[in-house]
């Protein structure tokens, strides 16, 4: 791999070579990423074709590394079908060698919106501190009312994270992300 990077850094200094190389790599990259994400979603070519309004043969064609007639419109339809965003970006040639050697299935996969860790609510964004304290009190009262014993140490109530370990909270999604002691 090191050999490829060293050789490419030298060769990409030539304008025509770099254009030929980069455009060929782009076609291969997009085609292969479509295939990889489709497989990651457990979709057949026919299922993906139905989602974006084309034929199975059409999907087969765009998953081939020799395809080059990309349409922005089709790429956006694919992004929607995969529940990801499309990113188009102009880049300097010097970043290409590292992209080439990191070309593998894992690096091409993308998580869908519903499982995107970047979109998971954080503790602070979910509940305002004042509301958190109130919810904690409600939870505590509820657990006591249903007969669950919550340990009290040194005269203090347990941290909310302890309270949320009780099954009733675990089943209630809205309380599941509360942690820390709101006292």
């Amino acid at each position, binding site marked *: *791999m090191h*050999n*490829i990077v060293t*050789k*490419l850094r030298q*060769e990409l200094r*030539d304008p*025509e*070579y*770099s*254009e*030929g*190389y*980069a*455009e*060929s*790599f782009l076609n*291969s990259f997009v*085609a*292969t990423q479509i*295939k*990889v994400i489709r497989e990651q979603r457990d979709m057949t070519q026919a299922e993906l074709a139905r989602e974006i309004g084309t034929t199975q043969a059409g999907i087969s064609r765009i*998953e*081939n*590394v*020799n395809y*080059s007639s990309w349409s922005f419109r089709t790429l956006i339809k694919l992004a929607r079908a995969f529940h990801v965003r499309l990113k188009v970006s102009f880049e300097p040639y010097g970043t290409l060698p590292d992209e*080439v*050697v990191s*070309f*593998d*299935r894992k690096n091409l996969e993308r998580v869908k919106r519903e499982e995107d860790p970047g979109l998971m609510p954080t503790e602070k964004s979910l509940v305002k501190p004042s509301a958190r304290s109130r919810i904690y009190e409600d939870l505590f009262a509820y657990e006591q009312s249903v007969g669950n014993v919550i340990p009290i140490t040194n005269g203090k109530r347990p941290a909310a994270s302890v309270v949320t370990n009780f099954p009733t909270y675990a089943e209630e999604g809205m309380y599941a992300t509360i942690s820390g002691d709101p006292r």
Partner: protein
Amino acid sequence: MPYALYDFADEKGVSIIEPWRKRLTNRSRGQLDSKIDMLAVSGMHLPTGLLAGPINKTKHIYKLKIYADIMLRPMFCKGPFNMDDEFTLLTGAVETQGKLIPDPAVAVVNRAVLLADRKRRVIRA
């Protein structure tokens, strides 16, 4: 998983592929190298359509398809000594009007020569 790539070599141990590659235009050479590097980085199965074959009337010869200013079709074989993680470039080639030049028989012969003499290949520079 990275793959090892070799060029078929003459009796002196010099690559026969490199002179062919150097005769191409810079743009075509860039397109060719992009596909060859992809083969080295990810093999033939992840990128669909990277290698086509086995070519008709051969059992082991594949062609790399590059749509450049001319239709480049360098011919490869898997292995031939380690079939799982190496490829050998047997001859440079182009396709004109559906015909491969040179004929795939050249690649078949080069592969046979290599199988008889392991020294007839060099690691791809």
